[in-house]
């Protein structure tokens, strides 16, 4: 579509930081990320919203597969990520070319827990190394 920013990105007439593409979809970093990782997965074909997909269309499954591949490539598939599609204005959709958001970022809480666990392990090893482990109170 002429006035569609995502069609222009798909065609290459607007720049984007692409992270993945295949014959069906293109994925690129959101220009206004809401998290450390915020990628948009966009079908090459212009569908305004998820409501406009044909009954037997398989594009959403393909977008999900692309999300899995991107998450794995970015190393966030195990920690986790969110995959979501906003539908219509009331659903928060801004660009009316179907797209899925892939959002991830290590939460501060999880980071602190991992640091604490890491510190405890290192401390124990250090104490054991110094032969102090058994003499502690």
């Amino acid at each position: 579509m002429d006035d569609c920013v995502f069609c222009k990105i798909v065609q290459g007439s607007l720049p984007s930081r692409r992270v993945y593409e295949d014959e069906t979809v293109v994925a690129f970093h959101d220009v206004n990320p809401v998290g450390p990782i915020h990628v948009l997965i966009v079908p090459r074909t212009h569908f305004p919203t998820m409501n406009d997909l044909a009954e037997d269309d398989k594009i959403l499954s393909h977008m999900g597969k692309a999300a899995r591949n991107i998450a794995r490539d970015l190393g966030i598939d195990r920690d986790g990520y969110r995959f979501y599609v906003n539908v219509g204005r009331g659903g928060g959709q801004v660009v009316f070319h179907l797209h899925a958001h892939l959002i991830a970022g290590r939460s501060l809480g999880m980071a602190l827990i991992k640091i604490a666990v890491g510190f405890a392990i290192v401390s124990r090893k250090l104490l054991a190394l110094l032969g102090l482990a058994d003499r502690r109170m």
Partner: protein
Amino acid sequence: MGDFKDNCVFCEIIRGTTPADKVYEDDLVVAFWDAKPVRPIHILIVPREHIPTLNDVGEGSAILSHIGKIATVIAHRFGVRDSGYRFFINVNAGGGQVVFHLHAHVIAYQPDRPA
């Protein structure tokens, strides 16, 4: 439909051994109200097959497209198909997933719940 997993609350809902306010079901998925809705409309769409996360969906599987289609059916039924809704899947603990049986959330503000 024999792909149930013990101790999975969604498998129990699908089997009917744990109650849920079901709104839709077919051969592939079951949809029901979230027990703790975060919006006036908050429906979960769950495949009958126990797939832990989106990462575990088979390479050639079309289940996500079916889940998406049912989301539009449910949105239509609750009168929010055109006004708008959010469709999302949390993947693994860091993505906010709590129950490890693949599920999509459909949430919307408009409280147009049929009687």
